[in-house]
């Protein structure tokens, strides 16, 4: 009986670790809601004043304050806001009669489509570039790709966006639209041409980071003893690289990929604004200009929560892809190594 229980926990080590990481994420999400909620308190005057702007009269202010529960103690306001937010109900916008969720609904999908279409191309591309550069270390491909990625990594994403527009949409070639014409009520799939330039911008922004980390990781693996061992066994270079080196080199890159995906959620804001792409980034910029705080809060919270979720997934992914850690976690739940491996934040 006892040994069965022990077996269960041995096999469940990974499961327990995953559960532990997810549980550890909960206080972080709560802390994020507190921080984002506090942004409302920073407003000079309160939400009722900004809501009514120039049309404020004492009676109307009082009415709005009651409607928004502004007379309750702060913690009551926080709990009602946070419990609604957990159900993805972010209340009404300050300027209109619509709810925040109604505005964000299909915009979120559009943003996810953009992030996905960039990530699906950028990540395999960077793994290929990084691996090839490492294999050809010091040769022409390595030197050129090192220079190009260093230059691209330097450029702010809106600079890349405008270069891309100049090159492919307006001045040199006129192949793709410079501005999205996705009609309201339809998803970005409906107009794939509109997706090309925003995705290309994000791909050019993400690929340099991931490929540089991949190259470094691959070089380290290629110098290791077990790769020399594999070569001495007489395996072909192709097998050595693809079967033995690549899987081991990807593990340390997973954290960077997760961080880059989380970065995409922020980078998307500026890039969407350049292309007037109908996602949450464009809404965010418009709402910041209108100082419509409920929308800004909702978007900020979602992006921050995505970061936490991606990090948890990356931790689990790192363990799954590293045999050494996998067995270690079957024995005890020591996570220090994994977090020491986290690096490369943008």
């Amino acid at each position, binding site marked *: 009986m006892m040994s069965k229980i022990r077996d269960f926990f041995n096999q469940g080590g990974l499961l327990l670790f995953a559960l532990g990481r997810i549980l550890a994420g909960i206080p*972080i999400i709560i*802390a*994020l809601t507190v*921080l*984002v909620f506090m*942004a*409302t308190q*920073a*407003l*000079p005057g309160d939400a009722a004043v900004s809501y009514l702007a120039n049309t404020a009269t004492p009676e109307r202010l009082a009415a709005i304050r009651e409607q928004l529960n502004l007379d309750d103690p702060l913690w009551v306001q926080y709990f009602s806001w946070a419990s609604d937010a957990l159900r993805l109900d972010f209340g009404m916008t300050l300027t209109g009669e619509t709810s925040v969720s109604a505005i964000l609904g299909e915009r979120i999908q559009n943003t996810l489509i953009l992030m996905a279409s960039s990530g699906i191309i950028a990540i395999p591309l960077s793994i290929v570039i990084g691996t090839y550069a490492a294999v050809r270390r010091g040769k022409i491909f390595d030197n050129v790709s090192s220079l190009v990625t*260093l*230059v691209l*990594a*330097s*450029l*702010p*994403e*809106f*600079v890349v966006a*405008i*270069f891309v*527009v*100049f090159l492919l949409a*307006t*001045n040199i070639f006129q192949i793709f639209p410079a501005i999205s014409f996705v009609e309201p009520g339809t998803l970005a799939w409906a107009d794939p041409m509109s997706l090309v330039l925003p995705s290309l911008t994000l791909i050019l922004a993400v690929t340099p980071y991931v490929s540089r980390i991949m190259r470094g990781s691959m070089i380290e693996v290629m110098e290791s003893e077990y790769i020399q061992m594999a070569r001495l066994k007489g395996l072909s270079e192709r097998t050595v690289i693809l079967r033995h080196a690549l899987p081991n080199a990807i593990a340390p890159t997973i954290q960077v990929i997760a961080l880059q995906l*989380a*970065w995409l*959620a*922020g*980078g998307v*804001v*500026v890039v969407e*604004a350049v292309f007037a792409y109908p996602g949450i980034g464009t809404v*965010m*910029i418009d*709402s*910041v*200009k209108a*100082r*419509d*705080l409920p929308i*800004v*809060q909702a*978007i*900020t919270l979602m*992006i*921050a*929560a995505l*970061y*936490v979720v991606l990090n948890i997934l990356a931790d689990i992914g790192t363990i799954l892809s590293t045999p050494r850690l996998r067995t270690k976690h079957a024995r005890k739940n020591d996570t220090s190594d994994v977090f020491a491996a986290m690096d490369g*934040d*943008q």
Partner: protein
Amino acid sequence: MEKKMKPKSQFRTLVALTFKQGYARLGGAIVLGILFLAIFGPFFAPYTFDEFVDVPNAPRSDTLMLGADYFGRDVYSRFLSGGRSIIGLSFISTVLGVGLGLLIGLFAASAKKRTDGLIMRANDILLAFPQIVFVLLVVSGFGTSVFLIAVTVGFTHAPRTARIIRAAAAEVMERDFIKAAIAVGEKRQRIIISELLPNVTSPLLVEFGLRMTYSIGLVAAVSFLGLGLQPPAADWGLMINENRGSLTVQPWGVLAPIAAIALFTIGVNFITDSFAKAAIGIDRKGKE
């Protein structure tokens, strides 16, 4: 007992090794050129940044080197006047952010394990906000103010720098000479200033270079989004935003400022990258 190299002479070797690399020299030349342009540019401007000189979007001519902008102002004069704000603000936010991050990182690394853990967990929470998103959240709460933007951008750098510095400093804390200093009973403040700080200068400078390029990107992006400097100010980010609509008719209003921003960030990154390579090289030699 490990050999302790004098930090000062080591630093000098590091700088020498950095600028032995071609890219570092190229980067240095670019950065100096753009800095010169930003600081002294306004003195060479043929017109003031806000006077009307021609019809909107007038093409290049003998009198207007880069034509007129969407409003009929001289692009060349506005370009020469538009670098100070963005580079100045970026510099301020980098100094603030890296400085604050350095303090937090050194403090955490030299603190008790519990305090260290607490600080770094709080730090991790702040990392969840992408920098631009946090800046936008603050701007929507307080409205646009150039000073506020510089401070906020700096603030978003701090937790990221703190993490790097803490990691570097924690490694130094394990070394013999720190243990000796603690055993002798040296004050923590003294350990931080005279033992820890000199030994984290390489990661600190790499951070500074990296954060400088991000600062420029962020400050310019905020202006570009129309939330930073307000018209009629001459500012590279704002110029790109204003003249974007006439990119096809008169590209110079966009191309000149965007090229300057791109060159500056590339230049800074060339130096930073070469410095990092030199620092890693020295580290490797030390271990062998």
